[in-house]
């Protein structure tokens, strides 16, 4: 108790050092006054009395010191003294500080940023009790050879009946939607959920109530919704009176019954939704009848019954597959499915599987960067301490004590690491945000959400700082062993071994830089290949404008050839700078798709039913995208609603249905339309994704097919500014000509393509960043080493020059040292890089791990860098004046 009390008052005294000090001074002054008064009373003169008082008091400063020792922690004050001393020492070499702090800041910063992602995506569990009982359900369909984690509602209902395996199950499906706030449309992320969803994840409302089973029982009976906490704040200003208000989503009125708690997460840790509505309103909002077995897309997480292991659950679901099948209507799309489970303790797997490998590779890369940075710190500290050999020798000779010297040098490392750490913290926050922005750029379907986790950041920083401190330990220890006798005579006692260690550090740095650079080369090459894929059309200078129908529920019903759209198109084509324009649906590369089976009506047809990707396209579409027509004709103005239905098919489809025959003039049924005549043939074009394999595509005439909304593709004559102007004008035209429509999204097709390869772009960017960082750090190391060598060998250079060495010889003397190190690093690094590259193979597009171009680029870049880093200090050596150099010592 008592010692505790003293501890706290000491702590208090420590932090209020100034106050205690003032108090003490005042008290001593008072004491001296009283003493002096006494002496005066005994007959001394005031001045005499003052001196006598001081004598009687004893050493004032000494008393103060005793007082200080008594009232506070000596060691703590000493530590602060060391730190102050270290700061003063460091201030004398700002260049060293800048390089050391910056390399640590980058090294630690990238680690914290990547680890934030790794933690959020790969490590974090759902915030529910017992997350290990949560599983994700999927259907394996052997016939088609696919795994699907989306189910139709009837399948979901059957899965939920398996109460002998699962305690409960939650179904959900997400969609982009339009929220109407006082007539202003806003893009939101909507999630339709079953009544079990909120109880399943232990959701608690911040306001009102959450959705329950009753909301979801009867289709369309409860048009209600729950807002997310952020959406409530952003779109409704946190107004508590939103309860009971009716809002419109996709034109459908829904009553707000509650706001979810700010900490509610739901099924996915990395995805946030703005509004939740019961699955029972899915037909109104998304035009997908809930009870139809033909509409999939409902994901499901289940909580296993206690005592049922993942394996047991898997086996039981597999065994139950037959029974589930029998309970469903015949001929549904997932017929013959085997139901499976897998661990979902970390939530629904939207990105985890795909991001798993990239993240681990990045984690490896940043670890290398950190090691290079630490090597740099150690190296710089060694070089600096070496130069201060004399200073240390004098200090030791004056009796400072090796422990004290070690402590001082360690304090310098502490200051550097914490300085670097503080900068790294800011850097990591910025980098995390930047990476997410890059990942989510423009793509409305992707919405990766990662919040920095304080405890994880702390652990990361702890580990990084510890690594950096260890890196600083050796140089400090080395320096504290300085032999004063030798150093004062101008020799170095840290000599040979210090030099060897520094070379080894540089070698390690170069080796790691080789690995990082080589990796960067692979990803950049892969990205270039992706960018050069022939899409089958020309996306340059093409702008895509997405038009949504607005207004009441009826307006979300498909319509055929609305006159308003025709008027819009006519006006857009008149705009200056527009080469051509056409409607389509869904826009290629937009992520949307229309897939259905088609049947041939000609007797010649074979096989009878082919899953085909449909595209609706208006007149001028082929010209706008510059898709070459191989045979037949394009759509024309005669292809009106009510007329003969026509289609253009691709070669792949034609060769599957009518192998060896001319497809022109053939007929087929599909997309709920009968007897469509093939009038044209095109080659291969990409439909949804740049990586996709050729697939059967049928293009239907836009004007003949019922459709919701439209995509307007516009080819402009000029790029950039021209497109921005066209975009503005198109928005005006839509507003004035087609008030039932609104522009929901505008993007260049190049941007859409970039979004499809966002992950590859991100990887290439990060790999390059880390490669450049690692290399730059290694080069700084080489620069430091050579620069130091030049200083140390001044006398030798002087001798050589005086016996006739040319400047070239002198430069070469130092370049050779750098090149030897770089070459040795390459010999070590390249095999290592080739081995490690195999882990990245799955992420590369048409690049082999042993990419010769990558090897060449890596090696030549590093060689050049090594030469440049050594050349700068080496040139300084040529300016050494032999007379001065020889007189120097």
């Amino acid at each position, binding site marked *: 108790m*008592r010692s505790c*009390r*003293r501890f706290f*008052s*000491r702590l208090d*005294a420590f932090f209020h050092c100034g106050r205690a000090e003032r108090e*003490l001074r*005042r*008290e*001593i002054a*008072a*004491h001296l*006054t*009283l*003493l002096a*008064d*006494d002496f005066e009373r005994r007959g001394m003169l005031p001045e005499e009395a003052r001196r006598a008082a001081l004598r*009687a*008091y*004893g*050493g*004032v400063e*000494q*008393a103060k*010191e*005793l*007082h200080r*020792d*008594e*009232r506070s922690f*000596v060691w703590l004050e*000493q530590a602060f003294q060391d730190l102050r001393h270290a700061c003063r020492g460091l201030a004398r070499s700002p260049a060293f500080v800048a390089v050391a702090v910056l390399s640590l800041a980058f090294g630690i910063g990238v680690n914290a940023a990547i680890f934030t992602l790794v933690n959020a995506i790969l490590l974090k569990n759902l915030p529910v009790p017992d997350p290990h009982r949560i599983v994700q359900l999927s259907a394996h369909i052997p016939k088609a050879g696919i795994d699907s984690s989306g189910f139709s509602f009837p399948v979901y209902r059957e899965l939920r009946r398996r109460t002998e395996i699962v305690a409960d199950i939650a179904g959900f499906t997400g969609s982009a939607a339009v929220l109407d706030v006082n007539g202003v449309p806003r893009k939101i992320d909507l999630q339709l959920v079953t009544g079990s969803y909120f109880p399943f994840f232990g959701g608690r409302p911040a306001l009102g109530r959450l959705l329950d089973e009753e909301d979801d029982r009867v289709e369309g009976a409860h048009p209600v919704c729950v807002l997310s906490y952020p959406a409530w704040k952003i779109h409704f200003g946190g107004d508590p009176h939103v309860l009971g208000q009716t809002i419109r989503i996709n034109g459908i009125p829904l009553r707000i019954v509650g706001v979810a708690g700010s900490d509610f997460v739901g099924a996915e840790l990395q995805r946030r939704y703005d509004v939740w509505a019961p699955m029972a309103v899915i037909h109104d909002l998304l035009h997908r009848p809930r009870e139809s077995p033909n509409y999939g897309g409902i994901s499901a997480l289940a909580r296993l019954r206690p005592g049922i292991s993942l394996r047991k659950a898997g086996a039981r679901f597999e065994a139950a597959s037959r029974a589930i099948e029998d309970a469903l209507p015949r001929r549904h799309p997932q017929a013959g499915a085997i139901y499976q489970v897998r661990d979902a303790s970390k939530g629904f797997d939207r990105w985890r599987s795909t991001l798993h490998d990239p993240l681990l590779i990045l984690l490896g890369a940043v670890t290398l960067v950190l090691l290079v940075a630490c090597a740099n710190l150690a190296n710089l500290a060694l070089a600096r301490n070496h130069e201060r050999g004399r200073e240390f020798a004098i200090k030791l000779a004056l009796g400072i004590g090796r422990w004290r010297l070690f402590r001082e040098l360690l304090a310098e490392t502490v200051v550097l690491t914490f300085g670097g750490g503080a900068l790294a913290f800011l850097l990591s926050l910025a980098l995390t945000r930047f990476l997410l922005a890059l990942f989510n750029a423009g793509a409305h379907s992707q919405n990766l959400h990662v919040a920095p986790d304080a405890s994880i950041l702390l652990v990361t920083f702890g580990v990084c700082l510890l690594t950096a401190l260890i890196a600083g330990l050796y140089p400090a220890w080395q320096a504290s062993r300085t032999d004063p006798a030798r150093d004062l005579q101008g020799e170095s006692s840290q000599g040979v071994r210090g030099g060897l260690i520094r070379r080894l550090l540089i070698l390690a740095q170069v080796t790691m830089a080789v690995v990082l650079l080589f990796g960067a080369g692979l990803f950049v090459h892969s990205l270039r290949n992706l960018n050069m894929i022939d899409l089958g059309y020309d996306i340059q200078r093409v702008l895509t404008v997405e038009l949504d129908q607005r207004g009441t529920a009826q307006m979300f019903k498909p319509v055929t050839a609305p006159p308003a759209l025709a008027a819009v198109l006519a006006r857009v084509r008149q705009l200056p700078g527009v080469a051509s324009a056409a409607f389509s649906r869904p826009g290629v590369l937009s992520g949307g798709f229309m897939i259905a089976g088609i049947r041939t009506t000609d007797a010649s047809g074979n096989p009878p039913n082919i899953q085909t990707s449909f595209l609706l396209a208006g007149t001028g579409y082929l010209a706008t995208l510059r898709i070459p027509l191989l045979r037949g004709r394009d759509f024309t103005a005669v292809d009106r609603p009510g007329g003969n239905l026509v289609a253009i098919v691709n070669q792949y489809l034609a060769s599957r249905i009518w192998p060896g025959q001319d497809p022109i003039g053939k007929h087929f049924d599909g997309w709920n339309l009968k007897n469509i005549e093939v009038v044209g043939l095109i080659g291969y074009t990409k439909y949804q994704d740049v990586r996709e394999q050729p697939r059967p595509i049928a293009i239907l005439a836009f004007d003949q097919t019922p459709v919701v909304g439209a995509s307007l593709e516009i080819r402009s004559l000029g790029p950039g500014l021209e497109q921005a102007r066209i975009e503005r004008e198109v928005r005006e035209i839509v507003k004035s000509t087609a008030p039932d429509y609104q522009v929901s999204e505008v993007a260049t097709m190049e941007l859409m393509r970039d979004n499809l390869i966002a992950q590859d772009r991100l990887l290439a960017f990060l790999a390059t960043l880390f490669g450049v960082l690692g290399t730059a750090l290694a080069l700084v190391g080489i620069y430091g080493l050579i620069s130091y060598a030049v200083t140390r060998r001044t006398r030798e250079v002087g001798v050589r020059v005086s016996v006739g060495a040319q400047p070239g010889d002198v430069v070469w003397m130092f370049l050779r040292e750098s090149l030897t190190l770089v070459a040795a690093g390459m010999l070590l690094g390249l095999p290592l890089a080739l081995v490690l590259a195999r882990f990245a193979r799955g992420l590369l597009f048409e690049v082999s791990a042993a990419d010769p171009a990558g090897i060449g680029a890596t090696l030549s870049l590093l060689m050049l860098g090594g030469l440049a880093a050594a050349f700068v200090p080496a040139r300084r050596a040529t300016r050494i004046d032999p007379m001065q150099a020889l007189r120097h010592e």
Partner: protein
Amino acid sequence: MPSKGQTKAPDKAQERIRILQGTLDLIVLRTLASMGPQHAYGIATRLQQVSQDLLNLNQGTLYPALVRLEQQGWIAGTWGQTESHREAKFYALTKAGQKALGRQTERWRQVSGLVEKLLSEES
């Protein structure tokens, strides 16, 4: 660093008593108990009078003991005025201090009794 005070402490007269670590605390407590609230100078003067100059005490050396006692909560200091209208910090015994004085006195008696006993047996 803590050794500084000892090595530089003047050792003027052999016959003067060098004070035992911890004993000073007891003496200060005792002085305050008998005299009532007192400033450091007063305590020092009183100590000199009582010990008849046998106690070698630089007046400054009193301060660490005062800090220690104050941090333990045994004495409390407040600023006030002396009779001669000078300002000074007056220290007073707290309740805890009174109890501590009792305990310390008891302990001192035990220790000194023991030492006395040993010494008398030796001789």
